[in-house]
């Protein structure tokens, strides 16, 4: 979250990479660069005051410094360069989370004060929060489900009546127009709220949550406003008839709910319930967010174990048994809540038959069992799914790139979404119009039977696929008896829906890709099953529903490339454990085949958003790189007892919006070795400045309240920007003692450590800053997330990404 007013954007720049004015660089040869002077000085600083206390940057040796200076002058010559957006960038917008606890004296004091029973209360609170996450996520899922059902039902009834009317009299083009206009106006509302109010609510939200769990602070991603926009947006886009599902956004919604509840307050609503104050830091919040994501998955698919595994797969570097158990608890509560509320709603209160938003229906193992001979067929289907998924992702990649480059204005994005909605309706209508596949009506098998040109008492089979919410279409593809669809219908449907879904993903509407993928896969899978039965002339009696399921799994695997969690989700959604093996095979093959061509959809979008995402391990060929080459240098350091003016100047320097500052020993003699003493964060400094914790003031007013950890927590997570803090001229001359507040034991590595080693430490501990020191414990450089994330294994070996302002 940007804690700062827009213009400041002290986002994630933890080191010196501002454009260095050459004058400053040259004027201060022996001091650390980053002179705030020439490049638009901070409001409070006068030019004269700079020189005396230009920050005591620590340069280990003179030769090193020369190096730096040369480089800097070079750099400034070619600066600023503008390039079109591409995938080899890292955005400055994203910061790290402070997953690592800051063990300063305040923290230690508080922990010492808390006795054993109090810790137990904290533990109980954690469980209570998890239960609440589950319940609320379930309720939100219910709300979405019911509203979508009502609104979509209304829409389909209106359009159906209209079509029925015009089929007799003629003038079906009006029905087409009505359908298209209804769709695009609903989508317009959904797109407007996303584009103009909260752009981060666009898409499925899974990439964003993945980033959050990876330790990247995506701005606004877990705000209440995002939740509201997400929920409304997903309802509108599903009702608007886009080729989207409501399952992916549930994961994001669950995560937001978790982040909100665990804090016991809402900054947007300005309400503080004064509960759960202990959890107001990134460490705890992130754990709850993973529980929320799991609860979301479990509500979406009725798959509690799948939800837990999803969180495990996405955020697994910080994991322990107790957390897993709590997450599982939240998932179970979530699916149970959804189940009980929905069964009440559907009028059979004690039945508990709808565990998820999408219900794949029952797959009886007797009727739909599989044999040994079919296993190779499933693998072949996995290959097909992988190839189709790769095509899907490649097409979507080009489209997304085009969108980022050219369609970046909100009004254009809204227009695009409306056009897609209209085209979806038009394509659906034309397909239904041209189809001559009529099936006899059988009671309740079809929700909105369209007769169109069929004989009385029959319905158009293409209409069951297009003229329905995607969830219902999936279920009917799985379960309608053999012969409900003819191969031509399925083929056309697959083709059209493939392109529609590919086109739709990445629009500025909140919508998921799970259901469209399942639908595409189910359609071609069913086609596959039918043709198999036809080719072998019944030798393998194939129930097409089974192949539809396998096709759906393969297609989904080919697009999103999740493995473990997806297998379990599919298994739980079908409620049939025996299908685990073929589903696993299909998913595995799809992933292997797909990875051969392009990445998974979510990873691709993360990359296109220029997020500094850390993968499981450092790139395999990066052993030759050492920390010295990876780190940023020189570092802006603070002295243990630092002048307020210096701190204010450093913080308000817009060009070097760093977040962490190594604290070094304050010695009057600049030539003396100044060893590393600790690390202090920008947020802490701001709180200190706000409360005016100066040495002089402490002496003046003896009764002054000591700063507690609570003061830091109250400011979390939106710390005020430095501009909002007023420091008078007199105060600038005061001194600040950082000893109490800094983290006295930051993690450090020597300069010779290899990149994989640094990476491992960084990833496993969830660090934000890793100080690189030399033999004398002097600060040489600082490694942050972006330093590590920029190395990537590309097509021609190791690539280095560039940093860019976005």
């Amino acid at each position: 979250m940007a804690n700062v007013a827009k213009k400041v954007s002290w986002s994630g720049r933890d080191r010196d990479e501002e454009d260095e004015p050459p004058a400053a660089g040259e004027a201060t040869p022996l001091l650390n660069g980053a002179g705030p002077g020439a490049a638009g000085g901070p409001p409070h600083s006068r030019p004269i005051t700079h020189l005396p206390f230009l920050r005591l940057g620590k340069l280990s040796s003179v030769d090193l410094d020369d190096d730096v200076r040369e480089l800097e002058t070079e750099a400034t010559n070619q600066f600023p360069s503008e390039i079109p957006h591409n995938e080899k960038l890292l955005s400055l917008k994203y910061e790290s989370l402070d997953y690592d606890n800051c063990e300063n004296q305040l923290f230690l004091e508080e922990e010492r004060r808390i006795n054993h029973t109090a810790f137990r209360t904290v533990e109980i609170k954690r469980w209570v929060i998890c239960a609440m996450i589950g319940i609320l996520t379930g309720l939100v899922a219910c709300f979405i489900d019911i509203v979508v059902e009502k609104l979509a039902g209304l829409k389909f009834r209106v359009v159906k009546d209209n079509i029925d009317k015009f089929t007799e009299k003629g003038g079906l083009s009006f029905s087409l127009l009505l359908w298209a206009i209804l769709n695009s106006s609903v989508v317009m509302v959904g797109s407007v709220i996303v584009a103009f109010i909260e752009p981060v609510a666009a898409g499925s939200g899974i990439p964003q949550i993945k980033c959050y769990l990876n330790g990247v602070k995506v701005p606004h991603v877990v705000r209440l406003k995002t939740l509201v926009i997400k929920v409304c947006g997903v309802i509108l886009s599903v009702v608007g008839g886009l080729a989207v599902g409501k399952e992916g956004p549930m994961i994001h919604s669950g995560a937001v709910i978790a982040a909100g509840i665990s804090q016991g307050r809402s900054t947007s609503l300005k309400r503080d319930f004064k509960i759960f104050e202990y959890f107001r830091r990134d460490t705890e919040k992130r754990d709850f967010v993973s529980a929320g994501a799991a609860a979301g998955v479990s509500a979406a698919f009725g798959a509690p174990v799948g939800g837990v595994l999803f969180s495990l797969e996405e955020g697994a570097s910080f994991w322990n048994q107790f957390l897993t158990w709590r997450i599982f608890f939240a998932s179970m509560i979530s699916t149970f809540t959804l189940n009980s509320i929905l069964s009440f709603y559907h009028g059979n209160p004690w039945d508990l038959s709808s565990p998820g938003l999408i219900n794949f229906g029952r797959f009886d193992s007797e009727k739909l069992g599989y044999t040994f001979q079919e296993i190779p067929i499933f693998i072949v289907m996995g290959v097909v799914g992988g190839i189709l998924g790769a095509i899907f992702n490649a097409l979507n990649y080009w489209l997304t790139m085009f969108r980022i480059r050219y369609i970046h204005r909100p009004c254009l994005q809204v227009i695009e979404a409306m056009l897609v909605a209209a085209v979806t309706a038009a394509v659906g209508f034309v397909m239904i119009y041209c189809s001559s596949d009529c099936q006899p009506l059988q009671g309740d098998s079809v929700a909105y039977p369209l007769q169109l040109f069929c004989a009385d008492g029959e319905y158009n089979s293409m209409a069951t696929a297009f003229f329905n919410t995607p969830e219902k279409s999936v279920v009917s593809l799985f379960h309608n008896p053999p012969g409900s669809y003819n191969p031509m219908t399925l083929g056309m449907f697959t083709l059209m829906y493939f392109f529609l879904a590919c086109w739709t993903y990445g629009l500025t509407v909140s919508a998921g890709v799970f259901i469209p993928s399942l639908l595409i896969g189910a359609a071609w899978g069913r086609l596959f099953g039918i043709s198999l039965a036809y080719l072998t002339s019944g030798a393998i009696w194939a129930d097409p529903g089974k192949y539809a399921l396998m096709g759906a799994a393969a297609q989904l695997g080919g697009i999103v490339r999740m493995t473990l969690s997806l297998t379990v989700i599919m298994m739980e959604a079908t409620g049939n454990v025996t299908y685990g093996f073929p589903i696993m095979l299909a998913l595995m093959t799809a992933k292997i085949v797909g990875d051969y061509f392009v990445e998974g959809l979510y990873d691709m979008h993360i990359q296109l958003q220029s997020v500094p995402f850390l993968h499981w391990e450092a790139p395999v060929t990066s052993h030759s790189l050492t920390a010295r080459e990876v780190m940023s240098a020189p570092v802006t350091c603070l002295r243990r007892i630092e002048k307020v003016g210096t701190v204010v100047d450093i913080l308000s320097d817009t060009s070097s919006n760093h977040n962490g500052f190594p604290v070094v020993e304050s010695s009057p003699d600049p030539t003396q070795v100044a060893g590393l003493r600790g690390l202090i964060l920008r947020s802490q400094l701001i709180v200190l400045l706000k409360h005016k914790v100066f040495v002089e003031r402490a002496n003046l007013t003896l009764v002054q309240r000591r700063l507690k950890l609570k003061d830091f927590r109250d400011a979390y997570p939106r710390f005020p920007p430095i501009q909002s803090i007023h420091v008078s001229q007199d105060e600038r001359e005061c001194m600040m003692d950082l000893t109490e507040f800094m983290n006295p034991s930051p993690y450090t590595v020597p300069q010779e450590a290899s990149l994989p080693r640094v990476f491992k430490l960084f990833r496993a501990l969830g660090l934000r800053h890793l100080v690189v020191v030399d033999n004398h414990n002097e600060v040489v450089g600082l490694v942050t997330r972006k330093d590590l994330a920029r190395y990537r294994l590309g097509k021609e070996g190791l690539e280095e990404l560039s940093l860019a302002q976005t």
Partner: protein
Amino acid sequence: MGLAARLLLLLLALSAGQGLGSGRRPPPQSGPEGWALGGGRRLLSLELLEEAEDLSLALLGMGLPGALPPECRELLVGFANSSVRLTGCLVRSARPVRLCQSCYRHFQSVTEQLENITRAVGNSSESNCAKSLLMSDRVQLVVILSQFFNSTWEKANCANCLKNNSEGLSNSTIEFLNLFNTTLMCFEHNFQGQAISVVPSNHTEVCRKCNQTYRNLNALYNKMQKMTEQGSEHRTHLCIDVEDAMNITRRLWSRTFNCSVPCSDTVPVIAVSSFILFLPVIFYLSSFLHSKQKKRILILPKRIQSNASLVNIQEKYS
């Protein structure tokens, strides 16, 4: 002693082919009916033979404790007779489907018989008919049969077109069936003139003349469907008689007579849809040409030997 005498008597009866054994029982109801319908002596003798066989088997071990008491046997026979009648009725009215209208009385009597058996639980503990008839063996034939009847009845959803107390057809069903008959009459009447023509199309006369009745029938059917839907959350079927009647009519109307010819206006539909499909093309082209491409400002990181490291990488992989 008495038992032996009865057995002897039975053997006599068997050999004579006469219904002597039936003297001590109420005359089987199927007997006279079979006589009347079949009119053959052979049938009668066959039935009698069966019954005698029954009796012989039943009497075997009559005196033993745990044998089927006579009152239970009576109940069993009652059930047998009513189920025979119901089965016959069901099969006879299978096509065209007239299940509910013609068999509801039989179904009711089967239900009553079964109730008699189950209700007999309380009256005497030693002759516990329900126990001995319904759950004393593995097959439990009475249960199977009654389950079959019930499930058939439910599948046909006959309750939907009967009055609440199952006393008779509901008013709407009667109305529907009347209208259905009128429609069929109309079809038949108007079709006669063209019956010789083999070409299935151009039954314009039928279409014109019966249009109103057909529409009424359709409307009534839809109304009935709506009414059932209101009652329950899920879509439910009407009873099979009504559904089947409607299906027959519809098939005749749109397949055989080819009366429902929807207006197809392909040209406007194609025009409108191609217009809609064309819009995105314009949109993308114009945004490609007119929208300013978004540029990213590169920021050069500050590091010690970024040149060296790049060289390093390039060396390694070149």
